[in-house]
């Protein structure tokens, strides 16, 4: 009976809201926001970029202090001076907010490294692999050529106002080419066009045709197709595709209609891409993070479990792992690579985790677009990869080994110091029947999108 009493409640009343019983935080936090509209996102843009977030590395919030007078079940807690308390739980904190996951790099004070663990070799391997994934000069030249031509056409379109009721507010290049994280063989460019006039589907079509005409005038062989995101311009001779991603200014947001205009979720995504580019330019441009991003993008193609990781999440995670260290020294490539996998394995993207704060989208922590099942497979894949790497299976993880084995599907064997080690993929832990109730807000949105 006492057990069931403990289970049902008698917690500190501060931990619960009386009306609906939802846990709240004890320390003041930002009020929960309603789902963002276009308008509010745009309004927040500069705040986010310039000082919305400062303050550097932040661990979990301090736990709640000693809980009031001792209850019937509270023996003296560990805060008591003198002899160590008697066995027992101490006063349990009223409610623990989610904690940051265990991170070996931040906890390095407690776990002193006793060997270099082949970091140099791993680093060299990563650098090699990254250079193989980087497009060569010819490819880059092609992309750059297409980019300048398209940009010139867009400029002409805007300046000369070729179609009177299609107005362009601004346009900029986004995506992997801009960030220099593009993979070799991936000949695709993204340009976001923010429209001042309403982003009607017909006017977007017109825009595409007009830009196409301008390009054809320069004797390029191209084809223009309308897509749901905007237009796709293919430079057929060199096989480069340019995506014109349409977005619109905040003032147009209330007037958007489904079916008549480009879908709002897509346009929000395109605006987010602009924010990501600005963040990247500010934080990570020119740093070796881009090589790491290439590696993970490549792994994402090869390992099914890593698929749900968005490119933006990869970029941010890689940057975070490289830059955020205890002594503010940039982490070398090898350890950074391991750290990314370790964080994933420790469940940074699992439900109930505190997650990583998205610097470009304040109330997001990268979790909202991933389903539970994907979270599970993402985590278990990373966990398997961590083990494979520890037994010296770098090549299999990086995709440089001659035999093509997916280590996350089939068991693999390794020889470690003359000892045979078998690494088996992990079982699923997610059971839909247990998690049916009340999904996080993002879940329904994702389901709807499908």
């Amino acid at each position, binding site marked *: 009976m006492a*057990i*069931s009493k*403990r*289970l049902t409640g008698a917690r500190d009343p501060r931990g619960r809201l009386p009306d609906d019983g*939802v*846990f709240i935080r004890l320390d003041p*936090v*930002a009020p929960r926001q309603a789902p963002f509209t276009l308008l509010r996102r745009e309004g927040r843009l500069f705040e986010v970029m*310039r*000082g*919305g*977030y400062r*303050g550097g590395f*932040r*661990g979990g919030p301090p736990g709640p202090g000693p809980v009031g007078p001792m209850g019937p079940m*509270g*023996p003296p807690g*560990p805060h008591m001076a003198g*002899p*160590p308390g*008697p*066995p027992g*739980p*101490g006063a349990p904190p009223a409610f*623990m*907010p989610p*904690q*940051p996951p*265990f991170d070996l790099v*931040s*906890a390095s004070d407690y*776990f*002193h490294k*006793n060997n270099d663990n082949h*970091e*140099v070799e791993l680093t*060299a391997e990563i650098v090699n692999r990254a250079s193989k994934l980087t497009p060569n000069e010819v490819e880059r030249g092609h992309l750059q050529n297409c980019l300048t031509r398209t940009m010139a056409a867009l400029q002409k379109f805007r300046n000369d106002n070729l179609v009177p009721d299609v107005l362009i507010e601004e346009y900029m290049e986004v995506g992997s080419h801009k960030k220099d994280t593009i993979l070799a063989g991936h000949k695709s460019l993204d340009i976001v066009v923010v429209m001042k006039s309403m982003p009607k589907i017909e006017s977007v079509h017109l825009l595409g045709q007009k830009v196409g005409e301008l390009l054809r005038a320069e004797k390029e062989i191209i084809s223009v197709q309308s897509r749901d995101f905007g237009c796709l311009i293919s430079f057929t001779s060199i096989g480069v595709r340019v995506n014109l991603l349409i977005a619109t200014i905040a003032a147009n947001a209330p007037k958007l209609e489904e079916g008549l205009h480009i879908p709002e979720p897509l346009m929000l995504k395109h605006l987010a891409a602009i924010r990501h580019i600005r963040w990247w330019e500010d934080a990570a441009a020119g740093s*070796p993070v881009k*090589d790491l991003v290439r590696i993970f993008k490549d792994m994402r193609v090869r390992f099914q479990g890593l698929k749900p990781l968005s490119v933006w999440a990869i970029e941010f995670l890689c940057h975070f792992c490289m830059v955020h260290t205890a002594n*503010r*020294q*940039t*982490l070398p490539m*090898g350890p950074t690579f391991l750290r990314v996998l*370790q964080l994933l394995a420790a*469940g940074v993207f*699992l439900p109930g985790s*505190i997650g990583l*704060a998205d610097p470009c989208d304040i109330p997001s922590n990268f979790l909202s677009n991933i389903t539970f099942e994907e979270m599970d497979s993402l985590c278990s894949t990373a*966990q398997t990869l*961590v*083990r494979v790497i*520890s037994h010296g299976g770098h090549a299999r993880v990086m995709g440089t080994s001659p035999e093509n084995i997916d280590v996350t599907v089939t068991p693999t064997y390794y020889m*470690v110091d003359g*000892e045979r080690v*078998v690494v088996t993929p992990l079982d699923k*832990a*997610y059971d839909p029947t*247990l998690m049916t109730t009340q999904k*996080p807000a993002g879940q329904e949105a994702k389901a709807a999108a499908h």
Partner: protein
Amino acid sequence: MYGYDQYASYGAQATQAMANAAYNAAAASQQMQQAAQFQAPNFVSVLGDYSGAAHYNYAPPAATLQYQGYQTYQPQPFQNPLAQAQGFAQATGPPALAAYANAQAVAKFGATTAHKPPPQLGQPNFFESTVNTAVTSYLQSKATGQTNQWMNKKNPPGMKPMPPKSRFNGTSGNTGPPAQQFYCETCKISCAGPQTFKEHNDGQKHKKKLALASGEDKVTLPRNKVSFRCDLCNVTCTGQDSYNSHIKGSKHQKAVQTCKKMGKVVPQDQPTIIPPSQMGGAKAVPAPEQATAKKAVAASAISFVQSGALSTTGAAEDKKKACEEAVSSAGPPALDREVQALLDAEQSLKPIGEEFVEDQRDHTGKVIQFLCKLCDCKFSDPNAKDIHLKGRRHRLQYKVKVNPSIEVDIKMNPKSKNKSVNVLPRAVHMPYTNYTFQPYGDKTECTDDSLVMTKHNLIYPDEEMLRFIEHIVVNIEKALKNVSDELLERLATKNKVELKDANDMRTLKGVTRVTALAKQLVLKEDREVEVVLLMSTYPTEVMLREVSELIQKHCQPVPFGGQPVPVKTENQISQASILVSAGTAPLKCRISMTSPVARENDPANFAQWKPGGGLPLEKCLKSLAKIRHTKWFQARCPNLQSCQIVQRLLRDLRIRLPAWAILDEWSTELLVERVLASSEARLSPGNALRRVFEAISCGLLLKNGPGLEDPCEKEKTCALAYLTSQQREDITCSAQHALRLIVFKRMTTVLGIEDVVVAAGADRKRHLEEDQDGAVKRERKD
């Protein structure tokens, strides 16, 4: 369920008991003294009174029973206040057992930091810096004195006057070199005519230099590097290489030519060396950073140039001249040495990663430019190549991409830079979200914490068991005391010594509780608790048998099943221990015999110093290690939120799951403590358990992980060294699955309590329904 009501009373009682027993070390040793002196024949117990054994008195921490002979292990009997103070100082670290030599390893966890000598700030530095300042300001005033004179007489600072009026006959060219006439002293530039000269003077570049020269604007100097300064051009370089390339450069050559034309003394091509601002800042004089750095012109490996061209003025310094002259003979001692060291470091900085620099040639084979593949940058100057290879950016890239072990100095934060320049900081953001998420799942469902506590209550021993443990252990401890006394008596009569003088000869020195018993980690399923018997000589087989017999003689019956049961002993020579049991009671108590001698002597020569019939050395060492581990545990774990609970749960896990069984007790405890201590927040039991699994999931135990440094060993050893790769793999695998199970609401599976919780859930549901029914009935009544 049972335990907690007991805890409250235990808490009060324990506090009192501890107050009596003087838990902290100083007090403990004091008590030891008193005990030894005044209550010599009596048996001294740290816990004092055992008579009320009916209370829950389970496992008092550091329950070491001290015999009067204890004090022989003290360094010195306290004779005078000084000695006493020393004695206390030595006794501060670990609690009661500090005096044992073998507990020294534990001592480092205690608060022994007081022994550290105070940091060396104070006289020497202060003196040196004062002398330095004096010397340098003397040099300065000497230099500037001349300049000032020269400047003040003739022109406003920084500028030559307008040329003298030319003759009216038009032969103006002969009056003097025009270069000198329109020469800007500050910028070292000669102008073609008055017009350009005026323009130059109005220009931004000139104003900037002027401001710089007059000390208004400060040049940012590297904080921890030597700077090289070309006084002629007023250029500060951060490295020898960049200085060299400046000297070779056309700008400098031009300046030299101009100076020569004007007939001025051209300083040699040797730099003035400016010590880093950090050292300048450490000076006693509260001068602005730049000024101090400028003044502190010091000797160098290259030359000792006294900066004639430095133009900082200071009227007050003239007055000091006289006294400074006197000081100057003393020479600048320390700063020079430091600067010298920095210079050497600068010299020894080898260019790295040369193989990554490619030269690109045109079709004739002439090198047109260099390309650094690491940094993705191009340059055409071969000089720039060297500078680049030594530069910070290149080194950083080399570190990140090639060799992680090289050192790159940390860039100081922008605060130390010029504050007037408003640089927007990079968007640094909090890595982790600071907003909470709607807890998913059923609101009435039990949380992880309560599940963990349910499980904990299930594995926690019940009151009866705890009482039995307490009885048997206390009786054994008392019996051992009597055995010790009897052995001493025999020895005294044999050697014909007075009993009270024979205390040093006591063979059985003390007994201490170890492992789960002392750490309060006993579980319901445990069948054995352990105490360690410490002896002054190395334990032998004969001694073990003797002690075993005497225990049976002295030990009082233990209440079990409602009536007192006499104890039985079983000798386990190979284990170096005696197993004490009481009737049919499932739980037994193991007495392991050991001696500090085992650790003091070289284990390699065991055969030489081993007495006849000596017990296995390995077991004795292990027992000593157990004492150290217990001390460490008692110092670290009880104060850590949720630590004990997680420790018990992991003990249970090791019993239940075969993959975990391989982990030994000590490494598990160490692992849990380290993982929980590294958390910034106090963790609830559920979060703490999750964190332990997270840590193992990310490969803490794996071969390429950091390993666990054993704090209780003299040498640096890894507490996990005994695990094979496959075992590490299996444990990690299991933890990784467990972590995801916890996250996906299957904590019950991890804890192995599915059936229990289902029952409890049904029970609760019924209660809830009843409550609702009651509410409905009440409503109807209303």
